[in-house]
């Protein structure tokens, strides 16, 4: 026979303060656990969304990011003749050769310097990345020293008002517009004309080339073509999405490893908290347990009742933790991505998998914390228990 649920519920209610303290501990751990998962997911999603499966990017072999990659002009011209590259209506290859550098700008509200990515693009780049939309002002004109600024950079850094001039490289650049990259890494970049940038930074070579594949399947053929051409042997082709995913690995891995190590240690603390509460519950209710056993409730029913009590506590704690963590999704963090050494803005992303993992984690805390006390409760000898008052 099962012990009625009302009994379990009332026992929790009877010791409100203790219940609340235990709940608080579990909720805090669940909060940190969920927040860490959300953050590492946020980094991944920002970068993965940046790349498209239809695009491919060419870098120098063993260059892990555009920052350290170089592609010479001859090579880039050969690339543009590839039949695997889609053609634009005007007959030009659907490809953008780009220069990628980082510059220092001062953050708003402090004198901290941030590394801001500056990307020189070809005119085709705007169609290659349709997610990038103009937010304010106008697009820059190719052939001039004008730039447009990603919305995150505009928010985070000083001197980024429309119409303002910024000096970097060998020139002064006029800010003519803001763009919205729809939550991608482009939000944290500054864009201008690749030829102007190359000249200003004294870079005769490109950093990378990105092109639209005729179809996602054309990727392998293009890769093979690069490998077989001795003039291009130093290059490596990657799907744009894979490339950006790699850029997220170092950062999201760091957040995840550090965060999870810390939360697992935390959770031991919270589990001990739950254990203390449940042991005390057993000790206080010895006579009650004896009475229930005398009435005919089985050992396993007693065990179950105490386990359920602890699981209820932990699930409620987990739910509170998730609720608190979901508030974090309004916060965006802007910091240096270790992978690219430049500023990247990302948020806390709440996904169903985060909720499930957090609840499971809370459940685990409840079961581990409640099991030993529940066993003690079920093992009590009826006579001794009744006498113990």
């Amino acid at each position, binding site marked *: 026979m099962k012990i009625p649920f009302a009994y379990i519920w009332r026992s929790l209610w009877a010791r409100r*303060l*203790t219940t609340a*303290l*235990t709940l*608080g*501990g579990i909720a*805090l*751990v669940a*909060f*940190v656990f969920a927040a860490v998962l959300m*953050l590492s997911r946020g980094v991944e999603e920002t970068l993965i969304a940046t790349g498209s499966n239809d695009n491919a990017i060419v870098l*120098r072999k*063993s*260059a*892990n990011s555009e*920052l*350290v*990659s*170089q592609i010479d002009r001859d090579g880039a011209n050969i690339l543009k003749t590839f039949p695997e590259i889609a053609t634009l209506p005007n007959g030009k290859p659907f490809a953008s050769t780009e220069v990628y*550098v*980082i*510059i*220092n700008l001062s953050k708003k509200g*402090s004198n*901290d*310097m*941030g*590394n801001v990515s500056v990307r020189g693009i070809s005119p085709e780049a705007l169609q290659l990345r349709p997610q990038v939309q103009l937010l304010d002002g106008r697009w820059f004109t190719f052939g001039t020293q004008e730039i447009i600024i990603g919305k995150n950079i505009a928010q985070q850094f000083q001197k980024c008002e429309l119409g303002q001039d910024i000096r*970097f*490289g*060998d020139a002064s650049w006029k800010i003519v517009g803001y763009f919205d990259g729809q939550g991608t890494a482009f939000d944290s970049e500054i864009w201008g004309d690749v030829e102007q940038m190359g000249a200003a*930074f*004294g870079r*005769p070579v490109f950093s990378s080339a990105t092109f639209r594949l005729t179809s996602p399947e054309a990727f392998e053929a293009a890769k093979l073509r690069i490998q077989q051409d001795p003039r291009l042997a*130093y290059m490596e082709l990657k799907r744009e999405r894979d490339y950006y995913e790699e850029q997220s*690995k170092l950062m999201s891995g760091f*957040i995840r490893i*550090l965060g999870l190590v*810390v939360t697992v*240690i*935390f959770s*031991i*603390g*919270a589990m*001990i*908290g739950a*254990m*203390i*509460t449940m*042991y*005390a519950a057993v*000790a*206080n209710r010895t006579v009650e347990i004896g009475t229930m056993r005398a009435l005919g409730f089985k050992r396993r029913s007693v065990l179950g009742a105490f386990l359920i009590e602890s699981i209820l506590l932990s699930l409620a704690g987990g739910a509170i933790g998730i609720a608190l963590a979901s508030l974090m999704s309004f916060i965006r*963090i*802007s*910091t*240096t991505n270790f992978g690219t050494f430049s500023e990247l803005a990302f948020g806390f992303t709440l996904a169903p998998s985060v909720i499930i993992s957090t609840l499971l984690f809370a459940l685990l805390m409840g079961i581990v914390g409640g099991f030993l006390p529940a066993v003690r409760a079920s093992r009590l000898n009826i006579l001794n228990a009744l006498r113990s008052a």
Partner: protein
Amino acid sequence: MFILKLVLKNALRHKLRTFLTILGISIAVMSFGFLRTIVTAWSAGVESSAANRMIVRHAVSFIFPLPYAYREQLSRIPGITMVSYANWFGGVYKDPADFKNFFPRLAVDPETYFEIYPEFTLPPDQLATFKQERGSCVVGAKIAQELGFKIGDAIPIDGDIYPGRWDFVVRGIYKGKDASTDETQMLFHWNYLNERIKELQPSREGNVGWYILRVQNPGDMPVIARTVDQSYLNSRAGTKTETEKEFQQSFVSMSSAIIRSLEVVSFIIIGIILLVLANTIVMAARERTTEYAVLKTIGFSSWHIVGLISGESLLIAGIGGLVGLATTFPVAAGFATMFPTFFPVFNVETVTIIMAALVATVAGVIAALFPTIRALRMSIADGLRAIG
């Protein structure tokens, strides 16, 4: 004396509960200490920077090089007693996915580098061989140990910033003067880099990543910084001159959002310590309501009750704190061996120890507050009537 004895007896009444509470607190204090250690390790470079060194880099950002010609010009500026220079080489050693294989690789001037960084100690014979041999390198003791580099070994690096395959022969292993010195760098000849890059990409010849200046008088630093930056204001490569401390700080502040979240998390731990401890003390005080009433009846003052409750709370918090602090050291050492190159310097600082001890004590006081107030307010008659 009597109170102390009673506190001890009380604490031992529920041995299991007391043990669990101490365990919980010590784990929390340990993770607090560990997190604070990460925070301090992050800015270890700032703390260990020398007071007489300055760094000159490109004004736009550190990825742009400065001309080698600046070396001569810089050394003529009054107040500067030595000029050295270095380039970030980057490159990939073995599997880049393994954190262990990442260590800073710098092309330096062998003649001046060890002189301007006296905290890098290298035996004179090794220094002499290093200076003579073009393709040789010197590695820090920490990576030498972790990655098994011995004198005479060749280290293969795949270049990224500087393309091609590079092999360096280890001719020296440097040690740090004290625990706060970075022992994870690999240093080799700037000339060797420059000559090879001249063949591959002639346009990149004579590039220096940054200059390191030693100044006579630290008080002159602001003047020197202005003089240097002014003189290159209108040249192709403008400079930004900072003290070594400011230079290091600029790297730390890039990750300020992460450091701040680690700090927030470390304060959440204090919340957890408090909850675990408060739970135990509240429970104990509730069970002993009748006893407190009896004590009051036979003439003990309220202060005795305060002493009893907070004494027990402080005792448990104190033991938990001590155990936690004691375990912080092996945990930090374990982390440092697991990820040797993640943080060049990873030591538990004195500040961390003091903070952790303070946290445990404050938690002990606060946890006792609520049950103490309750015990003091309660009338004797109510207390005697209460059932645990």
